Structure formats: C-alpha cells, structure tokens
C-alpha cells in the first residue's frame, strides 16, 4: 500500500520560504523533512510526518518546475504557468541567485569551465555545502557570466536588469564575473584569510576605476576587461623606483609628513624603499595577463605582509598610503599624476580593505 501520486496545485502557487531554502541548499526530501520536524512546524500546525513529507515533496516538485524559469528570471514575470505574486517572484529569484561565501571563495577567479565543475565534489566536501547546491551556484555564475560577457554598458546594471537581482547581489555577481574573466588568483594560502566580500569590494574598485567603462560608458566590452591603455601607462610609473633621486625625494617627503604621527615611524622609514618598489612593480607588471592574476597575492606579499610583521595598524597604513600617494604629486620630475592617482586610489582602498587578520 502506498501513495502512488500526490499533488497539490493552487491557483496562486504556494511556496514555503523555509522549504525553498532547504531545496536550494540541496537537501534531499527526506533530509528536508527531518529539518522541518526539528524546526517544530509539526507541533505548531498539528501535522504529522506524513503530511510534512507530502508537503515537502510537493514543494520540491513546484520548485523543480520553476527552476527553468529561474534561469531566465525575466520570463518569470510573463509566464502563464504559475500565478506568483511579484514580491514572491522577487524572493524566488533573489534566493535562487544567492550563494554561499564559502563556496564562492573556492571558485572565485577560476575559469567557469566544465573542468572546474567537475571539481565541485571536492569543493562540496571541503565546504560542507551539498554538491547540488554547489552545482546550482556554479551554474548561476556561469549563466550570468555568459549573458553579460557579450553585453555593452555597465556590468552591474546589466546583471541587475537581466537577472532582476537586488543591487547588492548584482554587485557581487559583477565581482564574480570580473574575477572569472581576469582569472585573479584567490586560492593561494596567503590569500585565504580574505573573505569574498573583501574581494568583491576590490573588484568594485577595479571595475569602477581601471576598466574601459570607468572612463567611457559607451565602449564595448567595457566593464569586464581592464583598460589596456591604462595598464600600458602604468609602466611609466617605474620611474619612481628606477630614478634614485626620485625615490629618495619621495621617501623624505613621506617621512617628513609622517614624523611624530605614527608609532611605527622607524619601521616605515626603514621599509619605505621596499614598499614603494613593491607597489610600483605591481603597477608596471599589470600589462601582462599573468601578472594581473597575481595582483592580490602581490599586494599581500609586497605590502601587507611586511607592514603586518612590523605591526602597523590600519590607521598607520592609511596614513602612509595617503602621504605616499600625495607626495608623488610634489615630486619635481614626476609627470604621471593622472595615472598615479588612478592607480593608487584603487591600491589604497584595496589594501585598506585587505589589511586585517
């Protein structure tokens, strides 16, 4: 004796947020039922496990049927099959495209290819996120990537319009797409202390300042790729470390400005040349795609780590970078102010964001 068929269809599609989340998390029906029982919904509603199972299966089926629409969220609004109130639609989409920070950290900057997808079971094992959920999140990244890759106009705006995502989520996706496109290395051990939000912040900075779109909105391919011209120009900054006079002058300007204002003045003074070399070398190498990938690891190795070992506080870092940037403008023989500002603005905010434990 068994229930062979069991369906419930409402004129307005009934969806339980809790069950939806369980489904998104990749729980099997039985696991989801267990979670719900533990959640106490049974006592509240005088239901039995049987009822819960039936309800869960039914909801799961509804979600599966909706899933294909969720792949193209715009369709959800003008499809006829499910009558779903708009606020519900927004919820469905938002949650479907939501992702786990721990998952995204694993794939951030990797090529969104089949190969990566094959490795998802390792990721699942490592993060404790179900494989199903990993796949959904990965496919979401890939889907968004494919759609916006070809589009003109601002990246965040494109994502928001095509996937009807709320602003913050759209920004996060922009970061993911940007990282995937530029293949930034984020998985090295030294970078593990950084959260996705750290990277997303940096991505935002890069997108807003270093891409073609940052200068000209109408350009093609704008937001996903770094501005080649700018990268080319960065090579000119090398003069700051190759010209000995310039380097010394720069150092003395910064030291004068900082004397007495920081507890780590001595260390700073001792390390100035190293730090400056580090930052300028990063700038000069960015023209090579391979070095772009190492951008974050370079920042950590060349700047953050030395500072940290000298016990700088982030106030110290902020102070140093502010004066370091500004002092360059006073240098007599240094002419690349615009490039320098554009470069250092991003570097400064990235480093400040990344400067934590």
């Amino acid at each position, binding site marked *: *004796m068994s229930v*062979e*068929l*069991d*369906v419930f269809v409402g004129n*307005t599609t009934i969806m339980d947020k809790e069950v939806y989340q369980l489904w998104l998390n990749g729980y099997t029906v039985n696991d989801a039922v267990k979670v719900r029982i533990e959640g106490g919904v049974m006592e509240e509603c005088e239901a039995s496990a049987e009822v819960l199972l039936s309800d869960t299966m039914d909801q799961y089926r509804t979600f599966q049927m909706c899933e294909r629409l969720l792949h193209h969220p715009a369709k959800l609004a003008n*499809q006829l*099959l499910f009558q779903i109130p708009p606020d*519900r639609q927004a919820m469905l989409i938002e949650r479907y495209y939501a992702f786990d920070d721990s998952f995204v950290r694993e794939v951030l900057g990797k090529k969104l290819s089949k190969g990566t997808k094959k490795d998802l079971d390792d990721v699942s094992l490592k993060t404790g996120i179900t494989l199903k959920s990993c796949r959904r999140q990965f496919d979401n990244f890939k889907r968004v990537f494919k759609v916006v890759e070809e589009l003109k106009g601002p990246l965040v705006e494109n994502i928001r319009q095509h996937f009807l995502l709320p602003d913050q989520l759209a920004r996060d996706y922009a970061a993911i797409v940007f990282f995937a496109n530029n293949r930034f290395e984020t998985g090295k051990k030294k970078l593990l202390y950084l959260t996705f939000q750290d990277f997303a912040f940096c991505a935002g900075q890069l997108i807003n300042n270093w891409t073609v779109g940052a200068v000209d909105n109408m350009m093609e391919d704008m937001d996903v790729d770094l501005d080649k011209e700018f990268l080319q120009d960065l090579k000119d900054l090398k003069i700051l470390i190759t010209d000995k006079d310039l380097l010394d002058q720069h150092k003395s300007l910064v030291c004068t400005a900082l004397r007495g204002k920081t507890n780590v003045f001595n260390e700073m003074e001792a390390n100035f040349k190293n730090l400056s070399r580090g930052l300028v070398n990063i700038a000069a190498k960015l023209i090579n795609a391979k070095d772009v990938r190492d951008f974050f690891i370079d920042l950590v190795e060349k700047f953050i780590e030395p500072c940290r070992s000298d016990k700088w506080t982030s106030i110290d870092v902020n102070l140093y970078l502010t004066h370091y940037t500004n002092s360059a403008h006073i240098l007599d023989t240094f002419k690349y102010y615009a490039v320098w500002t554009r470069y250092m603005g991003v570097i400064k905010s990235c480093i400040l964001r990344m400067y934590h434990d």
Partner: protein
Amino acid sequence: MPGKLKAKIVAGRHLPIMDRASDLTDAFVEVKFGNTTFKTDVYPKSLNPQWNSEWFKFEVDDEDLQDEPLQITVLDHDTYSANDAIGKVYIDIDPLLCSEAATVISGWLPIYDTIHGIRGEINVLVKVDLFNDLNRFRQSSCGVKFFCTTSIPRCYRAVMVHGFVEELVVNEDPEYQWIDRIRTPRASNEARQRLIFLMSGELQRKIGLKVLEMGGNAVVGYLQCFDLEGESGLVVRAIGTACTLEKISSTLPATATHPSNSSPSKDMKEPGFGEEAPGVPLSSGPPTPLRAQTFSSFSPSKSYSRQSSSSDTELSLTPKTGMGSGGSAGKEAGPLKALLRQQTQSALEQREYPFFPLTAFPPGFLLHVGGVVSARSVKLLDRIHNPDEPETRDAWWEEIRQEIKSHAKALGCQAVVGYSESTSICEEVCILSASGTAAILSSRFMQDGPLDTEHRLSRQPLCVFSTGSERVEGDMGSSASLGFEEVVSPGCGFCHIPYDELNIPFPAQLTYCYCCRRYKVPDVLFTTIDLPTEANVTGKGCLIQARLCRTKKKAQGEGNATVISNLLPFLEYELHTQLMNKLKLRGMNALFGLRIQISIGETMLLGLASATGVYLTALPSPGGIQIAGKTPSDITYEQHISNMQKKINDTIAKNKELYEINPPEVVEEIIGSPIPEPRQRSRLFRSQSESSDEVSELDLSHGKKDAFVLEIDDTDAVEDIHALLTDFPTPAGFYSCNTEIMPGIQNWTSAIQMFTSVRVFRLNASLTSQGLNKIFSDLCENLLKSLYFKLRSMVPCCLCHLNFTVAIPEDELIQVAVTAVAMSFDKEQLLENGKQSGEKTLIKAITENDEQLQFNLELNAETPSPNPLSSPKGLSEVGSHLSARALSVDYSSFADRCSSWIEQLKLKAHTIRRGSVKTTSSMEKASPLPEGRSRSLRSNRSYSGSSVAVVKMTPLSFIPGAKIIKYLGIINMFFIRETTSLREEGGVSGFLHTFIAEVFAMVRAHVAALGGNAVVSYSMKECVFMENPNKNQAQCLINVSGDAVIFVRESELESTSVQTQSATTHTSNGAEGT
C-alpha cells in the same frame, strides 16, 4: 443566418526551439474554423515571432458559430519535410455571441500540445459580427446566456424560473475507432479534444433552443458531464435551469446575504431536550437482475420540514392542531393534492420534470424542504449504434428522473432542488445516479414575470403547478386575513415538514418548530442544497464525510451488474448510518450540500458521502450516541463499552464547544404525534437485530445470516466507533464545509486560494472490506490534513466548497481529487453578531488596521531577512491593509511568524472574549472562541510590475469583498495530456502536477482574453488519469468549467477609502489590460 467571425494573429512568444541547428523556429499559424483554413506568413528564425496578420474572416452560420471552436495551430515551417506542429489553441467563441457577455477575445493564450504541454503563447484577436437578432431562428440559440453558477447570478434578477432543461449527445470515441491503431497518439488526442469541443457546443446550442422555446433567456446551474463509455462511445450530457434573467443596473451587495433576523419568532427560545429519533434510512426498490437493472432508494429518514411563512400555510396538507383554520386547511389539502397529482401526471406525459439544479435561491423562493431523494440504476453499456439517435441513454435518464419525481411526490413535494446527475463506469457496467432535495417552491418566480400566464401555461406544464399553488396561496391569504396566521420567520420556514404528518413515508420524530412553535419539524434534515441564507443556525458548521469501501467479486457483464446492484442498497445504507452517527457526534441536526458518490471498480465499490453539518435552530437538539453491548454478563466487555461510551460523550461535548453549538437549554413539553421519550437516544445502528424500534431497516438486513452476523456486527460496531472517534478534528483556526458559505462567518477578507489536490493510492494486498474501509478513510483524512497544513498561512480560514471526487482508475488504485477554495476571515468580527456584516464603521476599520500594522512591523523586525527590500515592502503591505484589503494569499514564512503571533493573539482573543459577551444577541450564540489564532497573514501584491494579469479562481459563486459587475460567458474546457516519458517528467506526480498547473494557466489566460479577472463557480468535473509505468506512459483527461467574470473590489466602489489604493486598482484593471 450568417455571422462573420474575424481573427487576427498578432504575435507569439516563448516558442520552443524547433530547429536544433539554429536553436530557433520558423513559425507560422493556421487558423481554422469549420472547413475553412487561413495561414499566416512564416516568421523565420525567431522564438518570439511577430506575425501581425491581416484579419482572417470566416462567413458562417450561427449554428456553426455555436458548435465549432476556432482552432489555431502553430507550426514550424520546414522546407524539406513535413511541417512540425508546435501546438494548438481552441477558442470557444460562444461568449462573443451574446450581447451581454464579452465583445472581443484578445490576449496571450498558451499554445498547447497534448504530448508536450504548453509550448509558448500566442497573441490573438477574435471578434464576431452577427448580422441580425438571431433569437428568432430555431436551429441556433445565440444570445442565451449560460451560467455554471447554481444560484441566480449576482448581477441579475430572476424574472422567472422556467424549469428543467436537459440534453445529451452521443458519439463514437475517437480513441476507440479503428483508425486509432494507425495514427499517432497526438492525432488521436486532438481528434478527441476537438470532438468534445464540438459536442459541447452542439449540446449547449440544443439546450439554448429548449430555453428559447420555454421563453427564457438564460440557463443557470448549467452542469455538463462526459461519460467516457469506452468501446461503446462518448456521451456528453447537460442539465440546467431555464430562467428569464434581468440585469440589475443598480448596485447590489455582492457579498453573501446575511441571515435576516427580523422575525418575531427568533426570540423564542428553543428548548434543548435530548429526544432523538432513531432516524433510519429506508431504501426501497430491490434491484432486479435484468439486463438493465434499476435500483433506487430515497433516503427519507431525515429531511423533512416545511415552512410556514405567512403566505403558504395552506400548503400543509394536514390539519393542524391548535390552529383555528385547521378545518379549512384540511379541506384545502384535498384539492391541492389532486392538483399536484394532476400536475405530476401531465408533467409525466409531457416528460417534464420539476427539477432545479440550483442550490441557492432568491429569498422566498424555497418554502419547504422535504428531504433528499435519490435514484440509482445499474446499466450494461452497449455500443451506441447511431449517434444521431441517443434514445437509449435518454431513456435511462428518463427512468431515473421519473423515479426521483415519484420520491419527491411521496414526500409531499412538487419540486426537486439541488438536483444533479452523475455516472460511474467500469468496463461495461455503468451506474447512473441522480439526487436532489424534495421541496415546495413559491410560485412567485413562476408568475411574477412579464410574460403573461396564459402564454406560459400553453408552454409548459410547470405552470400548471404554479397555478395550483397560486390558488392555494390565495386561500391562504384569506385565512391570514382572518387572523389565523401570523408571519413566520423565514429562518425556520423551510424546515417545516411538507408532508402529511399522519402519513409519513418513513419513520421520523416530529416536534414543533423550535423557532416559531407552530409547525412541525423533523428531528434531522438532509438536503443537497446550500444552506439558505436566511436560515437560523446555531454555531458553526463543518464538513462531514461518510466513507465506505466494499469488496466485490470479479464478474463480467450481467453477472457483474447483478452483483453491483445487490451491493448498492447496503452501501447506501451504511453511508447513511455513518453520516447520521457523525452528525450526532458533532451535536448537529442537519446536513446541507449532501453529495453521495459511488464508484465502481473491478473488485470493489467505493462510496463517499460529503455534506456540511449544521445545527438548525428550528430543529430539536440531537441526542447523543448510545452503545449497546450484546452480552451484559461479561464485565470487561461492559467496561470496554462504557469506556467507549464515555469517549463518545466527551467527543460530543468537545465538538459542541468547537462548533459553538450551545442552544439554550429550555425544557419544554413536546407536542406532536409520535412523541419520543425525552431520554431516548439514537442507537448505533449496527446490531439491528436487537433494536425493536428499528423495524424498518430490518427489511434491509441480511435475514438468515443473523446468527453470526451478530458477532461480526459487534466488531464492526467497535470499528465504526473507532472510525467515528478517529476522525481528525479540524486544526484550530480552520473550518471546512462543502457548501458555498459557512454559517456564522461573514467577514471574509479578500484573501482566497483555490486549489486542486489529487491523490492516488495503490492497494497491493487483497484486503477485507474493513481493511479497505480504513485505508480509504485514512486516505481522505490525510488529504484533509495535508490541506490544512498547506494552507496554514491563511488561518483563520475556512475551506469552502470542498468537493471530493473518488474514482477507481484501475484495479487496486483509488483516486481522490479535491477542489476547494480557502478563504480567510477576520476573527475579531466573528465575535460580534453576524448581522452587521460587511459594512463596518470606519473607526473599527482603523483600529483593526492599527493592529495589523503592529503585527506587520513586528514581523519584519523579527524575521532577519536577507532581503533588503523586505522592510519597505512590509510597510507597503500595511498600507494596503489600511486601504482596501485587496490582498492575496500570503506565502511568507509562516513558520517563524506564526509562533510569535499566536502568543499575541491568545492574549488578544482573551480580552475580546470578555467584551463579546455583551454584544451577543439572542440568535447568534457567538461564544468565545477558544483558539487564539490570528487573522491570516496577507501580503499585498503590487501588480504593476507584472505583465500577466492576475485571475482569481473560485468554486464559489461570489468573490468575498468584491462585486461582480459582468458575466463574460461560460468557460468549458477539455484537455488531454499524454506522455511517453513519464520518468523524465517527474513520474506520475510530476506529470499530473504540470498538467493541472497548465489547465489552470489556460483557464486564466482565456478568462483574461475575454477581459475578465476571475472565474467563479469553477469546477473540475472530470479528471481521468491512467498510467502504465512499465511502458513509461501516462494519460490524463481533465474537464473544467466555470463562469468568467469581471469583478471590482467593493472598497473601490466606496468613496470612503482614501488611502493607498493603487494596489487594489491594479487587481481589477490589470486583467483587462492584456
């Protein structure tokens, strides 16, 4: 007479990819009506083609316009091979033929394929130009309005009710034609769909003709059914009530009417004494084992009553004691009877039936209710040889209707209301069933019309009857003027018995009406109609179901028919007993909306009786249930029995509290012929052999088996009691009924949720009848439990119009389908007297909204939402509550919300409870509600963002808080879906889930295309599901119907509501946009 049908194909969207190479489609459209076909150009390489075609014009007879659907086929052009069909759209253009309905069909309609389901949408425009007033022409019946609603539609007034119309057409089922062996499943399905469309159209046209002949202009309560007889053919039949309707131009409240409590009698207290009659049903007509067997019964026991409204006293056929006019009334009775008889006779000759498929009536129309009458007949199907001469099927129904009529007559009634017909088919055996409620109707609506009486008299026999009652009425009027009669409350009148007290056709205990104290009422009343709005009811009602499963031997042909017809009386009897016991267990005394369904399978029979139990104030209080043991010697047994008895008594007490049944316990002497002992209680009818007062049912009992029957009966009885006690009580905050409305609840919010749920259960072992019973009963109970759970966010709410359908799709499978609507209501107002109804004072509304505001804010604070939008949304929700309460179901995370609310509301309910006592009036015993559930959560939709119009669906004839301003025509759709990749589509559940969702979507789309924003009186009349998991195949047929309407929120009509109304306005306007 010709008309011109015009169609324009505008565009398509979301088309499937038909060309794998390009991932695109080269789509074009064929538009076909009758034998004429037009084509659009091919729109190459697009999934969203813009055809923007010219107007395709079809010049056709209006007869064809009524019969034929417009058939739109979307195809993919293929240069080298045959064009591939993407899917089809059938458009019923009937709504366009009636001047008062829709004028244009315009909108996105789903493209449907019987194998793939919905495959994109197509935007079309359809119009009809009729050249003349076609009502003069007899082959067509354009202009006759059809309503599925089983009451007078909300924006119409019944000028006259003409009577019963029925028709059936038969044809060969394409699925069983020889050609089916060589054509594709798709072709076969499409042939079937098209044929049924055609047959429905033809049927409707023929019924329309009958209506025109009778002088009517509309059919109300139109009920169309299919009998898939397999090899022997396909029958489409319909019944309805012909009326002359007049559109009401002024505004009329669209909400349910409220009980009118103005009668003086209502203040009289009804005594509650525990007298109880052993209401025993009596089944008559033992089946004869003929090739065509008929079996019939009327379940008389319960239901008789009649009303004495000032105008009809004379109708009582008996002299009344203590009434001055007794003599004259007695005299009156003779001629009336004769008249009635005469009328029946003439009706009989003319094959007319005083039947009304209506379930709700204009005030004053229904005078007395006799009781349920039903008839069943077992037939062997044979091939329909000549589709043009469907006499056999006609004759079968004729037979049954005659029987119904004679049952009604036996109850002293001239009419049958709440009438319906149904069939159950298994292989070549078919059970035809008909049931209704015997009643006496006022002649008013048959006379007051603009048509002169002469005219009608010449037309239809019903008028003979009306004249009869008219005469009576006149007499009565005179007696009233003499001062013998007083006005009697309409709230109890319908309960007064219509039959001769001294000549009761079945055993019943009569007492004087507990409302007016003047006329006799039965102890229990069973009916198939909705609870009359003016009825005086104590407390609330609830759904009561009797479920029964009986095994039977496999047999063929005649033998099978014999076995079935032998089983039927027992089945009916037991169902009746169960109903009775469950009714008493809930402390109630009347059933409304009774529907008994009997399904046959190869090895079993299923019986399901559903009804809504209520406590009618006019009827005596039901006694309890007494268990009688057979061997008083055994002490443990005694103990067991007394335990059981205690449990039962406790349950009754609990139920009385739950349903707020607390009639005043005024002791009064009983006057009436068969006076029952005050203490007498009804027995559990199991051990019949020992109950001396149940002689009548002994006729049915199994004579010689008595010796061991006793023992079996005992265990049976124990199980019955268990079954009684294990019925799952409705969870707090829920009510359920199978009628349109629930007594005691008026303040509906606009949150409604219509749903369909289907379950199929596989039995794998050979089971005893008892085991089967339990399984079947559990199946229904579990289904209900699931529904309550699913809809918990709407609490407090009532599941209305719970319509269960059972079937045995194949051996060892039981299928139960439910369609109903969940409606939320405001708890606070419950506590006040129902009378003040919808129009609440502004102040009240405001305070209420304040509370709501608090709740919502709390919620938002509590639920840590990842959604940054949620708090502003919450606020907008509140905003809309303030204004219009145009809301929809809420789906938001109930779980976490509920808990905190309940706390709040417990407190709240407590305080309110105190206040409420004062406001309680004499009639509505509004007792404090124990459950502390809040009103439902409702979220508001902002419709502006969506391009798809919202279409509400409900099986009820109204939409709470809204006014129906226009009926756009009937929706009657038939779909077949088949798959050969069952597993890939998510198994049987996935397959059916998708299909039902698709059917809903198509209904909504067609309604929106007609310009409507809701379907009322929606029903799923057929859901035939067949599977073959081994072959990975399944097939399902669904037939749905309803009335497409335009409604506006009442709040929009009022000028008072000032606040944010935009959301609401969208609701009603949005639909018309597309």
